[in-house]
């Protein structure tokens, strides 16, 4: 017959090992950081920068601007827990991020860019022409003097596939619809992040609509 003390010891040992494993699990599990606090400190290896307040969701959808011949149509989707592997900084982390593609038809009714069909084309979503997740309030440049103090905008990279050297940034503000029938819209401001050193023989004109545009949700 096994003594009671021995049984008790065996049970305690099992509990101990379970707790050890649990402890390792807790310690190794990614640290979750609110996405809007991503740059409060140095980036953390293996962290998960999560859109805890669902600030990105309201930007998801298809949005369109039309004025005569000119048409700008943007499709935005959200990816959760997207892996970022930075060899330069020697760190990995995951984050919630928006990505998208777009179509632009200029005032001469020429379709300059149309990559809408690529919205689900890439497994590496950083390959999409629109990509980003920087949450900022009204103080983020370009500042929003009309925004409420707590209103959150998102800043995204947007790329012209034939001029990837242009370093465009797109600030997006969400304008909700209202009971009076005003549709849900986004206000975008596209600009370059500083001077652009053109490659040899490369053109320097903008093919996409820089400046301030309001797009209405169509899907």
């Amino acid at each position, binding site marked *: 017959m096994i003594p009671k003390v021995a049984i008790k010891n065996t049970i305690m040992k099992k509990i101990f090992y379970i707790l050890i494993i649990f402890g390792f699990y807790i310690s190794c599990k990614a640290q979750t950081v609110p996405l809007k606090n991503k740059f409060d400190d140095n980036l953390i290896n293996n962290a998960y920068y999560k859109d805890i307040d669902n600030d990105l969701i309201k930007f998801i959808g298809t949005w369109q601007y039309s004025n005569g011949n000119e048409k700008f149509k943007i499709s935005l989707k959200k990816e959760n827990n997207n892996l970022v592997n930075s060899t330069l900084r020697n760190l990995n982390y995951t984050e919630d991020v928006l990505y998208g593609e777009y179509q632009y038809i200029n005032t001469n009714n020429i379709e300059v860019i149309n990559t809408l069909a690529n919205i689900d084309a890439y497994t590496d979503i950083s390959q999409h022409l629109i990509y980003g997740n920087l949450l900022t309030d009204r103080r983020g440049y370009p500042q929003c003097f009309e925004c409420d103090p707590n209103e959150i905008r998102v800043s995204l990279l947007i790329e012209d596939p034939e001029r990837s050297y242009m370093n465009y940034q797109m600030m997006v503000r969400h304008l909700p619809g209202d009971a009076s029938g005003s549709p849900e819209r986004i206000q975008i401001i596209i600009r370059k992040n*500083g001077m652009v050193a053109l490659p040899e023989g490369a053109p320097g004109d903008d093919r996409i609509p820089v*400046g301030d545009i309001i797009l209405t949700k169509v899907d």
Partner: protein
Amino acid sequence: MKRSILKNLKPFLLLIGLLFTLNGCLKDDFSEDVESTEVITKNNPKYIIKTLHREEIRRNQNLVNKLKQNIFISPFGENTAGRNTNTDSLNITIDESYAIYIETADGSYHSYTFKAIDNAQPELMKNFILSLKEDGSYKEILTSYYLTEQDLEYYRQTGSLDFDTSIIYSNSTAFSANIDVYSRELMPDLNSSCYDYDLGTSCSGSQHHTWEERFQCPIFLGTVTGTPPSQPILNLDLNCADNGGSDSGDTGDGTDDGVPDGDGNNNGGGGDGNPEGNEDPVITIPIFEDPTVDEQNCAALYNFTTSSYSQDEFNFLEGQVDAGIEKGFVVKADPEFPGFSTDPIQSTNDCEEIPLPFNTIIYAVMHVHPTGCGNGTQPMFYTGDLNTLYKLASRYNPNIVPSVGDSNALFTVYMTVENYVYALKIEDLDKLSKIGDIFSNPDDKKDFNDKLLIDFKNSDDSTLTPSQDHLAAALLKFLEDQDLGISVYRSLQDDIYYNPNKPPDAQPSNWKKLNLKPNNDLDDSQGCN
């Protein structure tokens, strides 16, 4: 029973300890390193001190003409395109790429000190000095400094400020005599030496001074026996011709072997053998090492922004601060260096950034961040401007216009905003080259842009438009965090002008290198001059 409880609790205690340890390790991984910054200022109201680069020295046509006429060793001789001028007979190479220029506050005197390399003894520190004489010509002096590594290290750590604020100055008979005698040493057929001259003792004649009393001495560099051993000992080796200066001040070891005593055991005096009795003063700052990156950058800023060539462009951009379109100029190397040519560039839309055309002779770009469009552009550099600085350096081909040289100090992004002109300069090109990798990786590029945008945000929500000082401090913090090897300088617009009544090397300039205070506020107290 107690023992049993303790025995059972042991694993739990171990587990808790382990968890605490793991948690502690996690935090340790992300702790920030705090570095202290030491700023050394160089300021002496009695003198104007500048590091001049070759192009600016050449701009002083008066000096060049005098040199060509009056001296037989000219760093501006036939070999104008090269970096160095070799004086074969003396086996001395004069590094003409830069000089320390000193001018008395009243403008009555100036000198140029060049680094000289004795090809037979390259480890020996020598300087070649052109010192203005009363008659308008230049006296030539070749000095030799015997420094131990300890001396040099002391100079690096603590001595620079002392030296910079304490200029060698003497119009004493002894010193002048030696200088004059030594000037003849520059003649090709002379290689003998007859003077060892210790500056430390020469200042006091027969009386010894302590290091603390050195400012009372007309020549102070050096110490005498009995002073703290940590002070640098600088010996001016005054070799002389056979036909002059026989009344040597060398009493250090009783020999005329051309080797300094180094122990400071000299009693001064000497040099009475000056046959001409020349009383012209000599003021110099010894060059022991090449100028720092900061000094080179400051010199390049001075050269460009005090040039008569650049004034129209700066004035034009000052007038464009209220405009809507961003405008600017590219600065191209020109065979008529130090002249340069500029081409106008501008953005195609309001509030848009300028595209910089590809050209391998562009070494700088000037542009304005205007306020007259929409909500205006921010009066600060963005990530694209940082990348442009790297592109300027990586694309520039120094072989097309060799006389311009290829110093990293050339490459500059100027930005004109309200009241100020800012300049981005390279501090470390290896570090800056990282930016090429950043821009080629979408995730790194995204984080790079996003981080600066967040840093630029005003901490005070009630004021949406951040001040220039806030933006500049944010940029500096960003550059520090990213370790990009970029320095930021700024000058008041009003301090950038060309005075046609002043010689090129005496133009007004007031560039400041921007730094961060310990609390991360902007510190603009480090002047270039």
